[in-house]
């Protein structure tokens, strides 16, 4: 095992100061469920690991002028939050299916997003909830819409001296419902073969789709929004054939670049998108009615 230094700042300023000091020699670690696995597999480590685990001020789920979720919030906290379950349902669906209880107890939302795996469970739900990432570095804070956050597989716009502080979600979710489908072979301890998140905003009588957002994971090098399928749904009266067409558009080359990988063949992934976009749209609509 390659030697490294392990630093444990207790506040954000210290963490950013250390990042600045060590520049490209350092890497951030939060829950460690990705970083430690990578170090173990490659036997290579950065010279310095800067742990964010003691930044307990960044563990929170708040609602005031929008929803604010601290980057160090664990998947378990999201899973056990009734606020997340009822108002940010797709995120609840995702967080409660990450790894196992042991992984969810330590793995963080910020880690899942910054690791930027194409399969990141929380990415799709946060995309359809129109989340914004709040980054802080030596030059201050900046806000980046999550749809502009991922730049490639395991790559993001986060600069090496920046820390992801929180995810912001706009407040006007009153008529929205959301849902996430993680397609797997097993019931637990799985990565998604494909991930599908849908958020719908319905009219007061629940008949018309006023707004729609669809996100796919493992359907491209990064988590993506399926804009053509979203646009198709906007303004439509909700009906089976309408949702079915949205599924067809979402699974087409207009929206995604689905590939065959070791874990799954492309045709099957496309089928699952085609079938589960309508199903998740229906579930999201149900959840608007039940709010």
């Amino acid at each position: 095992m390659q030697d490294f230094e392990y630093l444990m700042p207790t506040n954000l300023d210290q963490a950013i100061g250390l990042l600045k000091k060590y520049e490209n020699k350092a890497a951030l670690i939060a829950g460690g469920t990705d970083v430690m696995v990578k170090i173990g597999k490659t036997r290579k480590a950065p010279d310095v690991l800067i742990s964010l685990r003691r930044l307990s001020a960044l563990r929170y789920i708040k609602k005031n002028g929008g929803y604010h979720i601290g980057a160090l919030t664990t998947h378990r906290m999201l899973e056990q939050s009734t606020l997340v379950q009822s108002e940010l349902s797709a995120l609840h669906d995702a967080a409660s299916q990450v790894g196992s209880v042991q992984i969810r107890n330590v793995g963080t939302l910020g880690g899942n997003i910054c690791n930027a795996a194409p399969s990141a469970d929380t990415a799709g739900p946060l995309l359809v909830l129109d989340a914004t990432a709040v980054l802080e570095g030596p030059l201050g804070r900046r806000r980046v819409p999550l749809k502009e956050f991922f730049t490639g597989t395991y790559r993001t716009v986060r600069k090496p001296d920046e820390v992801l502080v929180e995810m912001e979600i706009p407040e006007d979710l009153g008529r929205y419902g959301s849902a996430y489908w993680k397609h797997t072979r097993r019931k637990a301890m799985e990565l998604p073969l494909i991930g599908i998140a849908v958020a719908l905003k319905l009219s007061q009588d629940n008949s018309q789709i006023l707004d729609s957002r669809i996100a796919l994971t493992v359907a491209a090098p990064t988590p993506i929004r399926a804009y053509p399928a979203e646009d198709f749904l906007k303004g439509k009266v909700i009906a089976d054939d309408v949702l079915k067409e949205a599924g067809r558009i979402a699974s087409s080359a207009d929206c995604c670049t689905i590939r065959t990988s070791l874990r799954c063949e492309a045709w099957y992934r496309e089928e699952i998108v085609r079938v589960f976009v309508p199903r998740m749209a229906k579930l999201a609509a149900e959840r608007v009615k039940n709010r």
Partner: protein
Amino acid sequence: MKKVSVCFTLNGDSVTAEVPVTWSLLKTLREYFELTGAKEGCGVGECGCCTVIVDGDAVNSCLYPIPEIEGRSVVTVEGIAGKEGTLHPLQKAFLENNAVQCGFCTSGMIMSAKALLDKNPDPAEEDIRTSLSGNFCRCTGYVQIIEAVRRVAKGNT
């Protein structure tokens, strides 16, 4: 090799360890404290054989960087029996319910179950299944394991 000195609570006792900074909690438990109840199965946080309880939560000790343990409280399978060797109700239930075959997964199973029951003494079967979903048994004795946990949950031992 850089070393780190950590002070923490281990099965109720205050302890100090000076070990390489690259070590995991699992390696420290096994190599430094010679507590071999927690096992390394996969080493990547999937199998759950290394499960221990840190500050009340079940965690994979194989992925837990040792510097992080400073000031925290760790309970391993060695720490749950009574002082005179009386078995913990979960240990008893595993024995009586034939929930142990090869035994490699057992300590992890018991620690995940204990973390659940400490927080929720009367869990639904679904809660038990969720709590054990990160613990693999390759002899596939899951039914007996879940039944053993359920018996303790109901206080039927």
